[in-house]
């Protein structure tokens, strides 16, 4: 047992950089021969060691990689103007109720303010469909004999492709309208700029993306994101995946220089797609997406919640 030294306050001061120059030297000389001060210093060090031992084991590669996908997805969503994150003051509980259900997953996204800017009020967040914009321009190249119609309704520019090849280049300012290609067996949504869709015999045959990316939601398949430099083809699915097989997950083939997407990436994409549908209030589509997820990824990381969504629980969410 040591008695408390009258200089023991300096232990912390030295550790935190409040003692400099002579004061520091004097204290160090003292502490070298003072059990009380050395004991106090050891106490601080062991607290630090204890803290360093906390939690570090909790960071695993799987969480890191999943989080990476979420981060890039959220930032990409803002940058492409596909959806726009805006902060709102919560005006009424009804508004909260309307928004919370859809926005829960991404809510945390909005609690930021730019350093230096006026701090944003604590805010509830919603993904809002940007207003229709004349800024969106779609350059269309149709293959010989392609049958399609083109309509603009509200903030959606829609191409119904019945048969043949359609190549689209979408030029849009942030906040421009959505561009959807409806195919007989689903739809393909532009998230990027230049892509090509081929429909044959009532089925989507091929989705190739040169720039940006698209999300393909096709019957009986988990939604898939096709990235720049990648080509999705039905034949790959047909060969690789018997219907409802455990791993119905390889719809993306890649070019030689394309990034081979891992199973986990595809799972992430499918999951994120369901979340996107949910937050857009497209419960039915989300339900089928979730169902496809469960079938495609029976051992999936998000399986339980996807099962919940598939059963329609998402529609029952309410405010407390």
């Amino acid at each position, binding site marked *: 047992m040591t008695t408390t030294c009258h200089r023991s306050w300096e232990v*912390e001061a030295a550790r935190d*950089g409040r003692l400099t120059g002579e004061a520091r030297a004097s204290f160090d000389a003292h502490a070298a021969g003072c059990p009380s001060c050395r004991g106090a210093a050891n106490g*601080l060090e062991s607290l630090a060691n204890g803290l360093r031992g906390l939690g570090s084991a909790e960071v695993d590669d799987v*969480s890191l990689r999943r*989080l990476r996908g979420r981060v890039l997805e959220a930032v990409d969503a803002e940058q492409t103007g596909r959806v726009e994150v805006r902060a709102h003051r919560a005006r009424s509980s009804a508004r909260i109720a309307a928004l919370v259900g859809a926005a829960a997953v991404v809510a945390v996204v909005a609690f930021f303010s730019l350093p230096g800017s006026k701090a944003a009020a604590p805010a509830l967040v919603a993904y809002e469909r940007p207003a229709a914009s004349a800024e969106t321009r779609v350059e269309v190249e149709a293959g010989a004999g392609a049958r399609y119609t083109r309509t603009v309704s509200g903030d959606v520019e829609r191409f119904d492709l019945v048969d043949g090849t359609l190549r689209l280049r979408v030029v849009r300012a942030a906040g421009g309208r959505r561009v959807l290609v409806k195919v007989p067996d689903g739809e393909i949504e532009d998230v990027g700029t230049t892509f090509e869709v081929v429909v044959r015999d009532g089925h989507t045959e091929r989705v190739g993306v040169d720039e940006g990316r698209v999300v393909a939601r096709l019957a009986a398949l988990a939604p898939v994101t096709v990235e720049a430099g990648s080509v999705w083809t039905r034949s790959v699915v047909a060969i690789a995946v018997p219907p409802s097989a455990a791993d119905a997950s390889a719809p993306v083939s890649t070019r030689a220089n394309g990034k081979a997407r891992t199973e986990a990436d595809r799972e992430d994409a499918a999951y994120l797609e369901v979340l996107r549908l949910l937050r857009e209030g497209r419960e039915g589509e989300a339900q089928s997406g979730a169902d496809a997820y469960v079938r495609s990824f029976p051992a999936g990381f998000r399986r339980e919640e996807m099962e919940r969504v598939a059963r329609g629980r998402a529609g029952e969410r309410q*405010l407390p």
Partner: protein
Amino acid sequence: MRQPLKLVPPANPGSEDDRVLARVAGGDLGALGALYDRHARALLAFASRAVGSNEAEDVVQSTFIRAAKAASSYDGRAASARSWLFGIAARLVQERRRSFARLARALSRFDLSASSPPEAEDQSDMKKALLRLSEAKRVVLLLAEVEGFTCEEIATMLGVPIGTVWTRLHHARRDMRAFYEETSR
């Protein structure tokens, strides 16, 4: 002569992080991915200690989203991209409590991503003691003792006077000690 605050040396202008941040500012997602790969693990460990593992991912996600938006304002006043990112994360931890704790709890009831189990009951005493500190004290304690930032750096990161950092640090240690003495009785 001490020159605390705002006088943190400018970042090494040629550092890899700076180049990456410049690309992030230009909307380059690949660069953001690179920034993530370099710093996310440490940030996630920090956030796990600071808010528990359940909420840590939210903090880190928000950190990078904010970083992406603010990258163009990264002017090298932070000593490094690392301290800049930790500063964002630390502020987020504090802001959570200030403005959004209740809402976050409400939201978490619907949060589809909340698939991890509730915070275990058998947390270590150290963890319990840490989580009983105010966010402000906890953040400073972790930044100093775990992440190794100097008090001057922390002051810059949080935008508070260095005296405030010293005070919070002192009180954090005192509270931790008090908790130990209480529980070991």
